């Protein structure tokens, strides 16, 4: 199983992702976006970073890199695809996933550990958890506020496509526990298929024991095992 971690100009969490995936037993390698997606890729990670300097909107430029056509085809074939942080922004900009991640309500870049409540444990990304579990994973973004029209939001809820919501340490989903003003405290969602997911928090930063923080991100990355 080799997962392609796609490096765009300005990606900076690609190495972290490869290392974290290796820790959970997933063979992964970085792939430069201009080289195209290897035909034997068994999974795809769109990593965090600041692709193209966040010009125009975070993720807007990378979303139109030709490799994203490969990623879309792979996703349609059922290959698991995970977008993290800038990768989540790219996922939404490329319409792999619905909605948009835009400027934090605080108008500030926020780098902190947050709590997430698992909303749907019946997906590859959350199979390691139970519904209602509270996990701790860091965020680091300036444009992480999830926005989507009301009808489409209601559809997401009805289709059980919300993976995680920001919550407090006790699992209460409150405005106070919402770090960026996301609609419905949404931190991660599914695409049309449950094998496609994006999330603003960084599971690869909560996976390696030597970082001395939560290991709660391992469950998400284990989807590729």
């Amino acid at each position, binding site marked *: 199983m080799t997962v392609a971690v796609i490096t765009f100009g300005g990606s900076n969490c690609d190495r972290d992702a490869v290392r974290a995936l290796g820790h959970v037993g997933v063979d992964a390698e970085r792939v430069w976006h201009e080289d195209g997606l290897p035909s034997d890729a068994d999974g795809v990670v769109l990593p965090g970073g600041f692709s193209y300097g966040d010009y*125009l*909107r975070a993720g*807007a430029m990378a979303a*139109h890199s030709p490799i994203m056509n490969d990623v879309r085809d792979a996703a349609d074939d059922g290959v698991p695809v995970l977008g993290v942080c800038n990768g989540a922004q790219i996922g*939404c*900009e490329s319409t792999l996933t*619905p*909605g*948009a991640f*835009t*400027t*934090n*309500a*605080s*108008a500030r870049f926020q780098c902190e550990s947050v709590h997430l409540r698992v909303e749907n444990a019946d997906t590859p990304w959350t199979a390691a958890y139970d519904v209602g579990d509270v996990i701790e994973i860091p965020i680091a973004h300036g444009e992480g*506020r999830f*926005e*989507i*029209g009301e009808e489409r939001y209601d559809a997401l809820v009805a289709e059980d496509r919300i993976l995680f919501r920001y919550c407090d340490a006790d699992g209460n989903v409150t405005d106070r526990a919402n770090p960026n*003003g996301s609609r419905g405290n949404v931190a991660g969602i599914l695409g049309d298929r449950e094998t496609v997911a994006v999330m603003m928090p960084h599971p690869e930063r909560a996976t390696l024991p030597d970082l001395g923080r939560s290991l709660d991100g391992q469950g998400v990355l284990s989807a590729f095992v």
Partner: protein
Amino acid sequence: MYNRTSPKRLLLTTAHYDSMTTYTATVTVRLKRGVLDPEAETTKRALERLGFELDALRSADQFEVDLDAESAEAAADRADEMAERLLANPTIHDYDVEVAEA
């Protein structure tokens, strides 16, 4: 000037059908009404700190695109597609296109 929202103006500029004309398409991208604009809120507060009185402030991105086209409408169509595919994000943005001869 050809404004997307006032088609009557088209008549003024379609006389140049016989050859390519250079136009400037101005694409203005705004957040949809009701979508929070934290940068505008911050700017508003900064203006208030400077002593200005204001009720609201909205921000927008504006792109000026020079392009050759057979007509103002063709130029507007192309700029429209640019907005649809890249310049705006339909989830959060509205946009409009105005075209004038460069």
